[in-house]
């Protein structure tokens, strides 16, 4: 195949991996990276390397299943493991994604306040716009927004470079880990993995690849898309940590929220950094709020066999429309109620995500080794060693994360 033809093939299958990666850096992800940078400087940068490897190993399998079977992950789990496993998994996904959406609307509210808008106006405005965009607009509009939104993430790279970090230290700390045996440090490094590898993105990636109808011959191009996407996710995380590590860490400024990072950056690095952080957070939050509720409603309805589709009415597709509408409406209301248990909901969501992930990953690896489904595309023995190794470590770490974030 000539180089041009290869490039043409890649462009035609490109998308799912890169878009998934972008949405992966949602409000809670950005919070984790900002907090990590402010608290530990560059010393957590090395965790991004194993995280990226684990992400690539897992997403490659998920992507391969999407290409070969042409079906979504919730579809495959339902067809191969029956209604019970599916039902409880979908219930967990619903609760976890509800919490995710709360986090996203909270991120949207906070960033809007920094930019000088009142959240009492911007949250309802955001929620209604999303709802209308998806139910009344066309998918094409959503897709265009998603693709352009990817560019806003470049803001983090710019702010990282403009922070003028000590590149020698950055490179050294990235490739030569100096682990600090403090419980807070270890918790933080586990949190980075926990927010990067989430259950719902596995469902999202596989469905979007299946939906795109990528054929087996183009699987290699699709794999490249997935690998590039995984790398982008962690490059963005890398620059967020660098920015906060360069500008906030030396002054010992502790933050708990991504929005606090934006505020703390203003006196130290000027308005530009603060603005970039606020706009990027707003963008990430809104993207998450568009995709997560919609994705949740689709997987659940697909798995349970309920009528689905954004063009349907409440009468034709009641479960779909109610799940979709309520996962937007309730979180946006919760964010506006003073004293609502937001932190509790976000922790709950993290815990459920952590509990769900082992099941999702084990189902995924069992499915990918199913000859009937995958034919010659099952894992090779070597791939199985790597995958099981990765999955067991990720499971171990997320369970540890769940335990530490609860107690």
């Amino acid at each position, binding site marked *: 195949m000539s180089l041009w033809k290869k490039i043409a093939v890649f462009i035609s299958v490109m998308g799912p991996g890169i878009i998934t990666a972008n949405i992966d850096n949602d409000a809670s992800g950005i919070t984790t990276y900002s907090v990590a940078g402010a608290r530990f400087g560059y010393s957590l940068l090395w965790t991004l390397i194993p995280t990226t490897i684990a992400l690539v190993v897992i997403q490659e399998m998920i992507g391969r299943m999407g290409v070969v079977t042409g079906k979504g992950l919730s579809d495959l789990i339902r067809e191969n493991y029956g209604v019970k496993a599916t039902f409880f998994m979908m219930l967990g996904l619903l609760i976890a994604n509800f919490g995710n959406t709360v986090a996203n609307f909270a991120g949207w509210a906070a960033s809007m306040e920094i930019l000088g808008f009142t959240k009492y106006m911007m949250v309802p405005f955001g929620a209604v716009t999303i709802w209308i965009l998806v139910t009344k607009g066309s998918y094409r509009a959503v897709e265009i927004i998603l693709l352009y939104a990817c560019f806003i993430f470049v803001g983090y790279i710019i702010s990282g470079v403009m922070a003028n970090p000590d590149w020698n230290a950055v490179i050294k700390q990235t490739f030569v880990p100096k682990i600090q045996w403090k419980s807070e440090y270890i918790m933080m490094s586990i949190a980075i993995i926990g927010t990067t590898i989430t259950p719902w993105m596995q469902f999202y990636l596989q469905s979007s690849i299946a939906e795109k*109808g990528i054929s087996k011959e183009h699987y290699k191009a699709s794999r490249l898309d997935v690998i590039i996407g995984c790398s982008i996710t962690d490059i963005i995380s890398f620059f967020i940590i660098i920015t906060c590590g360069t500008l906030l860490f030396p002054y010992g400024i502790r933050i708990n929220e991504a929005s606090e990072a934006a505020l703390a950056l203003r006196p130290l690095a000027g308005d530009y950094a603060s603005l970039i952080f606020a706009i990027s957070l707003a963008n990430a939050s809104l993207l998450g709020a568009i995709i997560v509720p919609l994705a949740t409603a689709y997987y659940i309805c697909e798995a*349970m066999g309920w009528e689905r589709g954004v063009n349907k009415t409440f009468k034709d597709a009641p479960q779909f429309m109610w799940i979709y509408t309520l996962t937007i409406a309730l979180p946006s209301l919760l964010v506006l109620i003073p004293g609502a248990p937001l932190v509790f909901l976000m922790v709950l969501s993290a815990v459920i995500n952590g509990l769900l992930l082992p099941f999702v990953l084990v189902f995924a690896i069992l499915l990918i080794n199913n000859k009937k489904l995958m034919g010659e595309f099952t894992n090779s023995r070597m791939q199985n060693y790597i995958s099981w190794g990765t999955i067991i470590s990720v499971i171990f770490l997320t369970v540890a994360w769940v335990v530490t974030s609860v107690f």
Partner: protein
Amino acid sequence: MSFFGELFVSEILGKPVLDPKGDDLGKVRDIIVVRGEAFPKVSALILEKKKSLLNLPWAGLNIFNKRIISSNNYSESLQTYEFNEKDLLIVRDIFDKQIVDANGAKVVRVNDVKLEGYDSEALLIAVDVGMRGIMRRLGFERGGEDVMRIFKKPLPYNLISWTYMQPLEPKLTKISLTVPRQMVSELHPADIAEIISQVSHKEGASFFKGLDVETAAEALSELEPEVQAAIITDMETDKAADIIEEMPPDEAADVLSDLPADKAKKILESIEKEEAEDIQELLSHEEDTAGGLMTNDFIAYPPEISVKEAIEKFRKDAEDVETVYYLYITDPDEKLLGVVSLRELLLAPPDAKLSEILESKLKTVTPDTDEIEVAEIVSKYNLVAIPVVDTEGFMLGIVTIDDVIDVILPPSAKRKRRKV
């Protein structure tokens, strides 16, 4: 054995089967069905005892209901069973799979299967696709009823008769009936397209292959370009060519332009020459211009014939042409002279010449006019179709309003994707 009444398969799964002495033969693990006269029928139960599987033929059953299942065989006389791909098993092959409900024109998921006794056979008569089926599988059916009672609403049964079921897996089509196939072909092409866009490409392709050529051609043009390409690429060239030939040339060109070049070439070679030339001509234009939207399927008559002759000719020609509301008047070199609407033709005196009633000041576009501009002109002048002419005024084709609407509002199956 006689079996009267009805039961759901999930109610007997895991139930012990007793031999004549009342000893446990094993627990029900799955059920084999075979093609029956009207409905598929149960041919054997598969029992599981201490990890080994036994095949208990239907004839060996004595009592069969949701409380007691007993056999007149002892375990020594039963053969062991091994899972294989040939048998059709209710739990393995039907449970949790997607199936097309040809009556409701939608894709459903099988939550449970209902068996009914008839003439000493157990027939698979319906599938449960509702909430009740899910609850029953989860073991909450009672609980669900209680909860619904609080709201003073019954938990609805949502059963769909097997008569309306069109399986998506090629394997299951063995036990499907001929009725759904006919029903599917009577569905509106847009509904068929929606069904196909709801299932995986592989299932969509196998469903599509079951359609007759005419329905297939209509449904194909309602699908997204990627899905069209996937389905056609997957088909044998001859069958694909038959379907493409049935489509209007502009839609055929759209489908072919999304295919890999060698596949498109092969298909074009197997299509009737005249039709293939029309399509080839359309393929040479950019997709988002008037040339890309146009069809060369239109009615054109010479100016010198009379209205009466034109009407006679029209009766014959209109059958194969998609858009018939305008008759274009062209000279022998196909240079566009004017247009007569169908209404004007019918209202004109029969012996008038077409040249006397034609409207010569008509709106035209060139093949490279942008599609949005075409849409604006069609909308501004309230046209049903607009002719496409080259710079010298030779008629190339027409752009019809349905293609223009697709530019502004993509057809439902294309716009309302399930993708997120």
